């Protein structure tokens, strides 16, 4: 039962990254690539009707985490207090930027919220990557110093960085050179992903420039992925035991690599959606690889005093998980129905939609 909820949680988070990920990527493209009003409008039209429903996946995944693994929710949310608050504030700026820019027709007003939307998207992509890095690297659960726990077992607190930016230091920070590399992986991945979504959803002039850009960024991404795999092995040498023991788990890295390598053909794709499929495969594959190699650990402990949080010691009781599954299945079916309806109503290119002009 715990394993089932682990899988549900991973699927929900992966869905969130694939869906809201293109919103962040579109935000980055909007900020750094789009260079006139028509192009910016094409970008906001492409994500306008979707971003809000996409963000719900984060809220829903948070809710599931809360009730299925309450101890993990409490420990990680209080321990990662500062980055989570920054994420909340950035989500506010992202939403406000998107929703308010069209409300007043004034060039300064529009540029102000364009920048808020763009910068917030960029920083969110960076923070989510760094967050993944923190979970992979593990934290000092129970704040152990000289072999003595200063706090109750599952609790900890990390400042934004420590002076050395060293992931192996006793006093860790959220941002160190390892989590920063994963943050960059996330920014590049989502930029490619967002660019692919814009190509799929618009006929803007920007599409012609996006294809070569995706090709170049994909080269950078390939390099960063190899680098981060090596760093990962250095920071957490046991990370690959699951993959060594269970051969079928290699499906995840293979899916990820298929997407990554396939993306290099971006200039030859006939259909506008193929690039988006490739970047989605890469996201699902790499996130799946991470989850598969961590299982059953949810948050590793970096000391030998406090045990890591696993799906067994952090979960709710059996009855709660079972009864939760019943309503969850009903709700999940409904959600799929809503999404099908939504994608059918807003199918095709959205250049004509007057997003934000209401």
């Amino acid at each position, binding site marked *: 039962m715990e394993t089932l909820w682990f899988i549900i949680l991973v699927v929900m988070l992966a869905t969130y990254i694939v869906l809201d990920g293109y919103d962040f990527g579109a935000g980055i493209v909007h900020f750094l690539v789009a260079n006139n009003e028509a192009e910016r409008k094409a970008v906001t039209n492409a994500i306008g009707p979707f971003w809000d429903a996409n963000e719900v996946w984060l809220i829903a995944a948070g809710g599931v985490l809360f009730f299925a693994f309450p101890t993990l929710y409490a420990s990680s949310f*209080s321990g990662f207090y500062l980055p989570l608050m920054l994420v909340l504030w950035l989500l*506010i700026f992202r939403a406000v930027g998107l929703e308010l820019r069209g409300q007043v027709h004034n060039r300064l007003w529009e540029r102000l919220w364009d920048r808020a939307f763009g910068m917030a998207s960029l920083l969110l992509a960076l923070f989510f990557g760094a967050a993944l890095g923190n979970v992979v690297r593990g934290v000092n659960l129970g704040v152990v110093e000289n072999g003595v726990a200063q706090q109750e077992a599952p609790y900890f607190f990390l400042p934004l960085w420590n002076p050395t930016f060293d992931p192996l230091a006793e006093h860790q920070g959220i941002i160190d050179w390892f989590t920063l590399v994963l943050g960059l992986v996330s920014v590049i991945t989502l930029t490619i992903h967002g660019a692919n979504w814009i190509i799929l959803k618009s006929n803007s002039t920007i599409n012609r420039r996006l294809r070569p850009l995706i090709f170049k960024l994909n080269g950078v991404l390939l390099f960063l992925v190899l680098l981060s795999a090596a760093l990962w092995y250095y920071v957490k040498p046991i990370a690959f035991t699951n993959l060594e023991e269970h051969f079928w788990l290699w499906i995840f890295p293979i899916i990820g690599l298929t997407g990554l390598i396939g993306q290099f053909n971006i200039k030859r794709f006939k259909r506008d959606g193929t690039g988006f499929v490739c970047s989605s495969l890469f996201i699902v594959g790499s996130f799946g690889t991470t989850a598969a190699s961590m299982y059953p650990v949810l948050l590793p402990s970096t000391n030998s005093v406090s045990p890591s949080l696993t799906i067994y010691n952090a979960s709710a009781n059996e009855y709660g998980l079972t009864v939760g599954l019943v309503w969850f299945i009903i709700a999940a079916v409904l959600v799929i129905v809503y999404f099908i309806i*939504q994608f059918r109503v*807003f199918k095709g290119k959205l250049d004509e939609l007057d997003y934000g002009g209401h």
Partner: protein
Amino acid sequence: MEDMILYHRLQFAFTITFHYLFPQLTMGLSLMIVYFKWISIRTKNEHYNDAAKFWMKIFALNFAMGVVTGIPMEFQFGTNWAKFSALTGGIVGQTLAMEGMFSFFLESSFLGMFIFGEKLLGQKLHFVTGVMVFLGSWASGYLIIATHSWMQHPVGYEILENGTFVLTNFSALFKNPWLLPSYLHNQAGSLITSSFFVSAVGAFYVLSNRQKHFGQIFLKAGVIFGCIASVVVAFPTGDLAAKNVVNYQPATFAAMEGIFETEDGGAEIVLIGQPDMVNKKLDNKIAVPNILSFLTYQRWDAQIKGLNEFDEHQHPTNIPGLYFAYHIMAGLGTVFIAIMLVAAFLLFRKKLYDSNWMLWILMFMIPFPYIANTAGWYTAELGRQPWLVYNLMRMTSGVSPTVSSGNTLFTLLGFVGLYLMLGLLFLLLVLKIIRRGPEPLLTP
């Protein structure tokens, strides 16, 4: 330690108070928009369709504010109240996760279609998307109040040796006697905010002699909905909610009503008076004898327990705060009934649109339903203190152990600044939408 808990409490109180300014309008307004849309389809009156579209703009803005200020609420259970989350997450997490899965997906998917899809969908399907948005927002309220009810009156749980609350009976969460009265009371309160808002905008248009036709449509709908909601919020829903407090939290009830001593021969209802916590009495009290006994037990001489009957550590933490919150809510509620009954009478006699004095009153009522709803929530929350889970878990044992006072003050100040900015932007844009009105072409 004291500072740390204070900042955690202030941050939650500030962010939830600000957040609930938005859902209280959207929940009621979604019902009124569905009503406008329904009338437009039934009567083929295009004005009602324009009215629905106009309120949709205000709804969308409020909804966006509600979403962005709502996500921090869910996160703060974990970030600021980690121990509470760890110990009760298997139960409160259940209803909160259901809210995400059942209502947020419903609302957010169909809202996009309702805003952008009128041409793509046709009138009838467009109406259906509106109904879906309404259902989503009311389901969200239901699941939040289910969570709230469990904290006020815990049911269906078992406490393990390590203090963890585990769920033993899922359906008990929804059969909780606290749930239905609180939910209906809250939804009626939400409908009061939206109907006063709609009638105030209507009064503004009629008084300023522009968009008069829409002004009259808004006034009519606002007064009809407002009249029903103002009565329902007091009776039966407010009455039933109060009886729950009498039964399950008698010390809280005594503090709300300002009863320091049990009185023989029936309890009086206090209208005015300031609690003096040192001498345990009310200053310059105005009260009507025996009414409270009658309202509570339908007997003039029924006994109601005063605070003297309860141990000090069972008393609510902030008795004056609780007393004022309750009296502000109940006092304003009475004013709402009076105004809406008179307005409905004028509407029935077809004199409302020419009664300038009443239109001025309706226009200036805009802030008061917000105050009453907020005061109502403060009554419920202050009434539960010092407990997080009534009688079982104290507020002080729920806080995050590792988040220091400095870090909490930092984020509290951040929220204050950010929300001030959001509030100003919101006011600016709402006023802009109202100024433009439903018929942009006719305004200069």
